[in-house]
């Protein structure tokens, strides 16, 4: 591994950091702006209180009381919304790792160069993982700058950690998409299954968190959304093991992608 493909990936795709990071940052600023007004927050909390638990989960809220504080509001609303947008980025990044180049025929040129398939896939994965990190950091920076600029009463440390905690989930979606793309070879199939993975995870999390029981607990446990604990940072109940579970899943998923990619035909 030389890092040349990582560098090329960053050179060709660095604008994504700007577009996605600023886009999510603007969303953060909007939520910061609302957090300035206690009346709006409490009104919103009253509205949500009337909703059934499943609906609350769909809005990324498990504790109404948290929504009455600016910090809880930002974390609950922003993190759950940003998680969905980042999932979209992650699916696109996962496709960019190999599926797009393979479908276009560019992979034939790349793999005729003196670089192994494994090294290429790894470097592409690292490149897009760095772009994802850049997006999360830029979005956190803008959101925190908004909090400081608007003098919102919220812990910068809590906000930063809760946004940064989105990153392992984004890596997971990216890796799952990469795995699907290497397994199915067809971009359209990879998109379809990746989208299904995100939507089903979201629904499982909403249903699982709104009821208790063996099935619903299982549904919640297999949803990656349930490991994105924005509120846990406010409540001080964040468990690092949750992030490790996601990262371990990412590593297993990428190892599977590698195994498939190095052993199959390219571009058929």
């Amino acid at each position: 591994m030389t890092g040349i493909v990582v560098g090329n990936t960053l050179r060709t795709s660095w604008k994504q950091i700007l577009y996605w990071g600023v886009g999510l940052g603007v969303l953060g600023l909007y939520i910061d702006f609302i957090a300035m007004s206690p009346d709006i927050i409490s009104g919103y909390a009253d509205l949500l209180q009337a909703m059934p638990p499943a609906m609350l989960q769909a809005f990324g809220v498990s504790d109404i009381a948290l929504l009455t504080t600016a910090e809880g509001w930002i974390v609950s609303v922003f993190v759950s919304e940003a998680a969905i947008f980042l999932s979209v980025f992650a699916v696109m990044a996962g496709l960019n790792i190999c599926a797009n180049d393979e479908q276009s025929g560019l992979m034939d040129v790349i793999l005729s160069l003196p670089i192994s398939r494994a090294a290429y896939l790894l470097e592409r994965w690292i490149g897009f993982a760095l772009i994802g990190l850049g997006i999360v950091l830029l979005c956190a920076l803008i959101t925190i700058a908004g909090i400081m600029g608007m003098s919102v009463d919220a812990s910068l440390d809590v906000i930063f950690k809760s946004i940064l905690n989105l990153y392992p989930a984004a890596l997971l979606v990216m890796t799952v998409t990469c795995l699907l793309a290497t397994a199915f070879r067809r971009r359209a199939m990879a998109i379809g299954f990746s989208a299904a993975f995100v939507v089903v995870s979201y629904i499982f999390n909403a249903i699982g968190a709104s009821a208790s029981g063996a099935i619903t607990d299982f549904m919640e446990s297999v949803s990656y959304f349930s490991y994105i604990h924005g509120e846990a940072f406010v409540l001080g109940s964040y468990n690092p093991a949750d992030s490790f579970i996601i990262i371990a899943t990412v590593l297993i998923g990428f190892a599977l992608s590698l195994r498939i990619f190095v052993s199959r035909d390219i571009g058929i």
Partner: protein
Amino acid sequence: MASDSVIEISGLSKTYGSGDKGTLALNRLDLRVNRGEIFGYLGPNGAGKTTTIRLLLDLIRPSAGSARIFGLDIRNDSVEIHRRIGFLPGELTLWEGRTGRQIIDYVGSVRGDAKGIAKHADELAERLNLDTSKRVRDLSSGNKRKLGLVIAMMHSPELLILDEPTGGLDPLVQQTFHEMMDEYRDKGKTVFLSSHVLSEVQAICDRVGILRDGELKAVESVEKITNVEFHWVDVTFRDAIPAGLPQQLEALPSITDVSTNGARIRMRMLGDFDPLLRAISSGYVETLHVEEPSLEEIFLAFYSGDKES
């Protein structure tokens, strides 16, 4: 392996799909390409040329058999092999948003000597009259092809694998390409070139392999293939075909398959043009069109005894 063999293919087969739905694209291919030769790999579309090349590059995996390049196994030693070869795919895709220069630099850096390679790339680009400052999306298909040739040749590889290299190139650039191939051979380097254009193969190749339906039917010198060559000739007269001309032509040993259509006469001709020109001089010839035989026709002629006739 013989020391002068650059490519040695043994029983190489490839089936796409599995079971009853599987398609046999290449069937037990045995082939040797020697150092310092330009080998033409001829066959109609779908014959298995690109499949062979993709197998050699380890882009796809064989269903059976094996192949070695420089004595190295194409699967286990693919990175080392790729270091020493240059490749131009038949359907070239490059990074659309990047300039030729940026792509040359990137490929050069993957190859490990960006500066040295870039210098040679500049020489090649100048020779092919290619502007490397333009983005790929702004290049014509011919210029993209030139960029592909530069990328394939810029590190002076020991073996060039070219899949239909001159498609989209104008005749002047094709001529330059032929000269470059001759120089390559003079330096003792090897070229494996697939094509379905006989004239291109005739112009630059030393030996030719003819592939048909996934099977290698013949490996011959270019001279031998050329000897079986015939032409389709169309002659259109201004007024009408002179009386008795079709019969006169059919009587010539070098002409067969005479057919007429109004003032136009079409025939299959072997060998020299002189007997034909003498025969048609009795009428006013408006146009004379000479057509190359298709590969399929060459192939059939080669094996049906036309060569002897």
